[in-house]
C-alpha cells in the first residue's frame, strides 16, 4: 500500500514550507512536492500607494533580508524618477549592503545550513542546530560569530537608521552622509570581517572538506543538477552584489545571454503551479519543459554558487584565491553540485568583507554630497540587486503623480523555486529506499533545499490558524475533483 510522508514544517530556513513525499507499494519514492503554503500579496496591495513609500514597505516582506528589499526598491526609484545617485551615495549604499551580505551569509552557515555538516547530517535533531555547532566549535568561536554579526548589524543600523527595515535610501541618494569617524570605525569592522570570513572558510575546510564522507556527499550525484545559472556581474564579469548586468551561462558554462536589468522581461518568464503559492521562473528563450534539468530545460539557478558560475572571478584578491581553490577542488566550472552552495556562500562572505573594507578605505565615501534631487516625471523603474539568496528584481510603474499602477517583484528564492523542487525530488528518490525513512534520511532530504538558503519569510508574521486557504483534492492523474475552502 502506498504511503505519504509529510515534513511540516521544514526547518532551518527563513519562512515556512513543507515537503510531501509519496512512496509506492515497494516503499520507494514516486513523487515529492515542495509546497509554500503562504500568500504574499505585496504586488497587489502596493498598487495605489505613492512610489516613494516602497523602500519602506517592501522591507517588511522579510525580517531576515529587509536590507536587500530596501536597496533594490531604492534602485527602482532611481530609475522611476530618472535620477542618478551621487558617487558617495552609491558607495554608502554598497557599504551597508556589503555589511548585510557578510552577516546574512554568516547567519546561514552557522545557524541554518552549517549544523548539517558541523554536527552531522544524521545527528539527533536536538543537537543538529546552533547549540550543537557551539558545542563543536567551542564557546570562543561561537562568540566570534555573534560578535561579527553584531558589528555588521551596528553598521547597518548606523547607515540605515534601523537594523531591521532600514530607511536611508532615497531616489537619487541616501539620507545621511558618513563622517570621518564613521569611516574609520567601519574600516575596523571590515578588517575584523575579513579575518572572520577566513576563519569560517578554514572551519569549512577542516570540518567538511577534510572529511571524505562529506566531500563525497558534495561531489556525488544525490545533490546534483545540470542547469543554467544567472547572476549580476560587473563590467569585468566579476561577481557584484549591488549593480551590473545580468549574465546567464549554460549548463556547459558558456555565456548564454547578458542583459541589462531593464530587459529582464525579455528573458525571464514566470509560471504558476496549482499546488504552491510560489511562482516558478524559467528562461524564456529555452522554455518551460517541466521540473527537469539539462540544456533543453529553461530552469536556471541563482544565489552563491550560481553567481560564481556565471562570473569570471571575484573582484577582491582573497576571495579570488578561494574561488580558484573551490573550482580546482570540485572539478572546474560550472559546478552543478548543490551542496557546493555552502562553500560558495563562505567565499562570498569573504568577498563582502573585503569589499566593505575597500569602500571604507575610500575617502570619497565621506563626501557630504549624498543626494541628487529628482527632476523628472515618474513613469517606470526597475531595480536589481543580488540578494544573499539570488537575483532580486523590483519593477514599478506609476502615473505621473508617482502613484503605483503596477508592481512586479521577482524575489530571489522564486528564481530557485523549480530547482529546489527538483533537488528535493532527486534527493528523496536517491535516499529513501524500501520504505527506510529514518529521521537522518529525512534531514538529508531537507539538506537539498537548505543549501539554497531559501527565504519564504514573506508571510511568516501571519498566524497560520487565522489564514484562509483552499485545499484541492486531486485524483491520481492530478485532476482536481473537489475543492475545500476555509474562511
Amino acid at each position, binding site marked *: 500500500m502506498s504511503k505519504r510522508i509529510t515534513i511540516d514544517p521544514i526547518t532551518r530556513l527563513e519562512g515556512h514550507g513543507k515537503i510531501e513525499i509519496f512512496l509506492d507499494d515497494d516503499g520507494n519514492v514516486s513523487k515529492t512536492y515542495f509546497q509554500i503554503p503562504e500568500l504574499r500579496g505585496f504586488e497587489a496591495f502596493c498598487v495605489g500607494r505613492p512610489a516613494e513609500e516602497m523602500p519602506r514597505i517592501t522591507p517588511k516582506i522579510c525580517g531576515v533580508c529587509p536590507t536587500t528589499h530596501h536597496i533594490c526598491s531604492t534602485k527602482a526609484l532611481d530609475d522611476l524618477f530618472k535620477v542618478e545617485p551621487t558617487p558617495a551615495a552609491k558607495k554608502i549604499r554598497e557599504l551597508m549592503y556589503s555589511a548585510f551580505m557578510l552577516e546574512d551569509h554568516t547567519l546561514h552557515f552557522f545557524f541554518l545550513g552549517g549544523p548539517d555538516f558541523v554536527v552531522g547530517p544524521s545527528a539527533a535533531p536536538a543537537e543538529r542546530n546552533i547549540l550543537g555547532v557551539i558545542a563543536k566549535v567551542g564557546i570562543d568561536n561561537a562568540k566570534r560569530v555573534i560578535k561579527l554579526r553584531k558589528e555588521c548589524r551596528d553598521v547597518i543600523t548606523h547607515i540605515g537608521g534601523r537594523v531591521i527595515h532600514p530607511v536611508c535610501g*532615497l*531616489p537619487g541618494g541616501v539620507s545621511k552622509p558618513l563622517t570621518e569617524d564613521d569611516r574609520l570605525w567601519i574600516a575596523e569592522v571590515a578588517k575584523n570581517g575579513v579575518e572572520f570570513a577566513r576563519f569560517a572558510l578554514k572551519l569549512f575546510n577542516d570540518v567538511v572538506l577534510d572529511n571524505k564522507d562529506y566531500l563525497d556527499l558534495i561531489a556525488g550525484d544525490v545533490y546534483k543538477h545540470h542547469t543554467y545559472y544567472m547572476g549580476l556581474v560587473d563590467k569585468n564579469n566579476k561577481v557584484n552584489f549591488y549593480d551590473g548586468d545580468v549574465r546567464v551561462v549554460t549548463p556547459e558554462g558558456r555565456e548564454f545571454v547578458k542583459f541589462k536589468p531593464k530587459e529582464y522581461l525579455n528573458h525571464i518568464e514566470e509560471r504558476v503551479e496549482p499546488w504552491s503559492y510560489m511562482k516558478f521562473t524559467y528562461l524564456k528563450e529555452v522554455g518551460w519543459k517541466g521540473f527537469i534539468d539539462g540544456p533543453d530545460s529553461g530552469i536556471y539557478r541563482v544565489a552563491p554558487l550560481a553567481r560564481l558560475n556565471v562570473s569570471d572571478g571575484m573582484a577582491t584578491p582573497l576571495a579570488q584565491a578561494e574561488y580558484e581553490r573551490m573550482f580546482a577542488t570540485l572539478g572546474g566550472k560550472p559546478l552543478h553540485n548543490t551542496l557546493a552552495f555552502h562553500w560558495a556562500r563562505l567565499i562570498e562572505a569573504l568577498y563582502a568583507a573585503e569589499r566593505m573594507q575597500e569602500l571604507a578605505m575610500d575617502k570619497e565615501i565621506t563626501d557630504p554630497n549624498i*543626494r541628487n*534631487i*529628482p*527632476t523628472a*516625471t*515618474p513613469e517606470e523603474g526597475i531595480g536589481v540587486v543580488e540578494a544573499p539568496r539570488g537575483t532580486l528584481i523590483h519593477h514599478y510603474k506609476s502615473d*505621473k*503623480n508617482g502613484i503605483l499602477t503596477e508592481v512586479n517583484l521577482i524575489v530571489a528564492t522564486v528564481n530557485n523555486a523549480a530547482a529546489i523542487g527538483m533537488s528535493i525530488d532527486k534527493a528523496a528518490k536517491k535516499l529513501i529506499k524500501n520504505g527506510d525513512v529514518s529521521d537522518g534520511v529525512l534531514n538529508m532530504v531537507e539538506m537539498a533545499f537548505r543549501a539554497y538558503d531559501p527565504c519564504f519569510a514573506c508571510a511568516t508574521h501571519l498566524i497560520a490558524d487565522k489564514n484562509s486557504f483552499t485545499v484541492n483534492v486531486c485524483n491520481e492523474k492530478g485532476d482536481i475533483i473537489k475543492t475545500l475552502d476555509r474562511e
Partner: protein
Amino acid sequence: MATVTLDSSGLRCPQPILKIAAKSAELKPGDLLEVSADCPTFEKDVRQWCERTKKTLLWVRDEGGGKKRCQIQF
C-alpha cells in the same frame, strides 16, 4: 498664466520634491506653483530643484511652526 497651489504638509523628504516634480509636468512656461511644506529640508531641497531644472524661485517665506511656503515660476 495659472497659479497652482500644492500643500505638502506632513510629508517628509523626499516626498515634497517628488510632488513638485510630478506636478511640474502639468505646468506651462510662466505658470506659478505655490508650495507649502513642513519638512526640515524643504527650503534646501526646493532651491536645489529649481537650480537643476532652471526654474525661478521667486520667494521662500517662513510661516512659523516649522512651515515654509515658496513660489516657483515655470
